[in-house]
């Protein structure tokens, strides 16, 4: 187990390190010079040079890179070039909004998927299965931005029962009931595709599980089907679902860009968009690295959970 853990950890670190170099280089290749953005059009050559030196952009690439990693390690990200304020606080403000939204969507998707797929398997009614399958396919086939906008039009404009967008005025924690209402529409829009994927996966896993010999034995012993589903099958099917859930996290973060755009939700997605278009290197490179780290971490955690639950993986090191 330790060996497996170490090897996974090593490769995760490697990917992150490579990514950090790649991102740092890539961002500097993006056309458009931050110095001219900052200095303004009438700036003299001297003032440009001064700004360049102040930002450290005149130093060699590796020296800039090492400097950046040092700053990252000290969590001192310095000021942003263009968006104003401190990169750290820009990102932490945005991250709070995005994380709350994404987690909420994840909870919605997971809870919805467990309910839907257990219901489908326990009752196993034809109409229920057809209905679920139809809703499921629809959830996958309608683009997130379309769902988001339809939700706004129906629940915020036509029948104004929920806010049309924005974050709760008093923050998330002082008035949780109000905050919840702000989260429902964007959360729903974001959760729908993830819910569909999870439901399909879990239903399928439960069905597979029910074909296992132990189920036949249990049935022969007179244990009711639904009890088997809820006690044994679900427990066996969940670990793999957790891995899928982890994969969904990445796509949820991607979808958050769209949902944040529609709901004027000041999160990381909007920050990436603004940062790239205004050539704000310090902001963008940290955000990109962050997205890589999140991905690597979710994969790592997924793998580890998988290994912990499945001795074959743990012992043979097969991932």
């Amino acid at each position, binding site marked *: 187990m330790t060996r497996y853990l170490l090897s996974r950890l090593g490769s995760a670190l490697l990917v992150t390190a490579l990514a950090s170099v790649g991102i740092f280089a890539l961002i500097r290749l993006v056309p458009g010079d931050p110095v001219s953005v900052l200095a303004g*059009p*009438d700036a003299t050559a001297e003032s440009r040079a001064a700004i360049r030196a102040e930002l450290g952009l005149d130093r060699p690439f590796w020296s800039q890179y090492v400097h950046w990693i040092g700053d990252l390690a000290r969590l001192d990200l310095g000021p942003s070039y263009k968006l*104003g304020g401190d990169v750290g606080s*820009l990102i932490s403000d945005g991250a709070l909004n995005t994380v709350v939204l994404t987690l909420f969507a994840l909870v919605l998707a997971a809870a919805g998927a467990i309910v839907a797929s257990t219901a489908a398997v326990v009752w196993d009614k034809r109409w229920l299965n057809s209905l679920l399958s139809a809703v499921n396919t629809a959830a996958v086939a309608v683009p997130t931005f379309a769902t988001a906008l339809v939700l706004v039009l129906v629940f915020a404009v036509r029948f104004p029962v929920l*806010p*049309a967008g924005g974050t709760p005025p008093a923050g998330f924690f002082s008035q949780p009931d109000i905050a919840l209402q702000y989260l429902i529409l964007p959360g729903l829009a974001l959760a729908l595709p993830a819910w569909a994927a999870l439901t399909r996966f879990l239903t399928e896993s439960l069905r597979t599980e029910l074909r296992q010999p132990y189920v036949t034995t249990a049935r022969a012993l007179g244990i009711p089907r639904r009890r088997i589903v809820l006690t044994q099958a679900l427990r066996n099917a969940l670990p793999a679902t957790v891995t899928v859930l982890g994969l969904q996290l990445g796509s949820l973060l991607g979808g958050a860009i769209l949902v944040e755009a529609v709901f*004027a939700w*000041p999160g990381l997605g909007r920050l990436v968009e603004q940062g790239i278009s205004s050539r704000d290197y310090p902001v963008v490179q940290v955000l990109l690295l962050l997205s890589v780290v999140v991905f690597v971490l979710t994969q790592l955690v997924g793998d580890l959970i998988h290994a912990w639950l499945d001795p074959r993986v743990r012992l043979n090191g097969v991932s």
Partner: protein
Amino acid sequence: MSTPVPAPVRRRPIRLAGVVVALLTLLLATACSSAVDELKSSSGKRQEGGILRVGALQDIVPARIFTNSSDAINVLIGSVYDSLIDYPRDSLDPKPSLATSWKLSDDGTQLHLQLRDDVTFHSGRPFTSKDVEFSIKTWADPTWTVQLQRTAAAVTGFDTTDPHAITLTFAHPLSNIFDLLDMLPIIDKDTIGQLREGKAFVGTGPFKFASWSPGSKISFTRNDDYWRGKPALDGIDVSVIPDPQAQVAQLRAHQLDLILGASYRDFQSLGKDKQFQVNQWNGAEGQVYVGTNVTNPALSDVRVRQAIAYALDRKRVVDEVLRGAGVPISTPWPSYSPAYDEKANATYDYDLTKAKKLVDEAKADGVKIPKLPLTYPAENPIYGAIAQIAQADLAKVGIEVELDPQEQAQVIQQLIGAKFPALWILSHGYANWTPSTLAVSAYPFNADHNASLYSDPTYKAAAEKVWEAKPGAVDPADYAALNQALLKGSFLLEIAITLPQDASSTTVHDLGQTKRGEPILYDTYLTK
């Protein structure tokens, strides 16, 4: 979230769904106060204080704080700062503000201003004549890229011996000196460094700057010691919402009280709704136009530029894009401007045959017209619509255009730096002021250095002539000459005057706006 199913459920599986449904219902039931109801207010009673929630399309850019180039900046300047004098929106007759009275010398080169002695900055420091000098000198500094920089720089002498009076000396008479004094915010010299970084904005105005989260929100709180008296509102929260559609949705959902950026179509539909009020601010007009870079080989021939002017369907733009809130024009001036000339204003009509003829002539003389990029800000839908209308019409007369939507901030930067490759669509202001302000100041017109890179001695002379005169004493013949020069150059092709609009919930009362397009929120109050 994917924790094992709770223990009690295991025995009676059917309950699983029931429990989840019950939990969700409970969650919703505990959410007894509805976020929407909380946002709605309908009793009609005047509310003490309260925060006005404003939606703006563009964020503030500290380096461009004095350029009126974003709606959030307009709120900031209008709320945090005062100017020496104020123009009413509908006239050029200066009214007292921080200056109580003034006297212009007979030759027009000296202005003595008496200042209020009871005004303090938000920092607590009293306002004096030194601050006037500092503010004018800041505007004269090219690094701030202020449009009236040349006018500010023409103020050469400052007599500040009396802290509550100042005498300004000019290099030459300035016909637009009161325009400068109306636009110029009086800023605090101690915090200029923080202003540059966007950390502090200290003025003498009705609201104090509280905080700025870039890309998201700017907050202001009431200045209890405001010299005009305490403002009614507790504060202002400006949310930066770059999508006009999202602004409209949030206004409709009562999450915003006032929105500054929406399409004219949205304003039209909001105006039909009893819950909202659409305000039109005549006197603070803008002008939407097509700019040309005259150093582009295809556009250096004036016939090509004239052809473009003839190919612009101004009436269609006013009817279909501005939804009637505009006037087709060929010269910048609104009808009440001293430089307005009805005949000159009708120079360019929509005439594709004439346009085609001009293009063909130019092409016959060897002018090559490749596909020209047409740059415009992507955020505001009116520019995109006008660009596509122009593109279709220009294609009919033999000018291929490629649309190049960009972020507003990038477009403004190219405007200031005169970096557009060929054509662009934008709005300018200043035609509603003393005409010389436009001719010597506005980026697209500045006779010295403009965004079109158009330089012409006749135009320059005409612009200087109307500028270097005593206020109110410009010869109408000189204005006629200026119009002649503008039309001869045809480097900036006017489309239409746009009448600015904003929309507010009916719970917002006594909104105002300055000639500069800054919301006046000093008297504004909310009802419950």
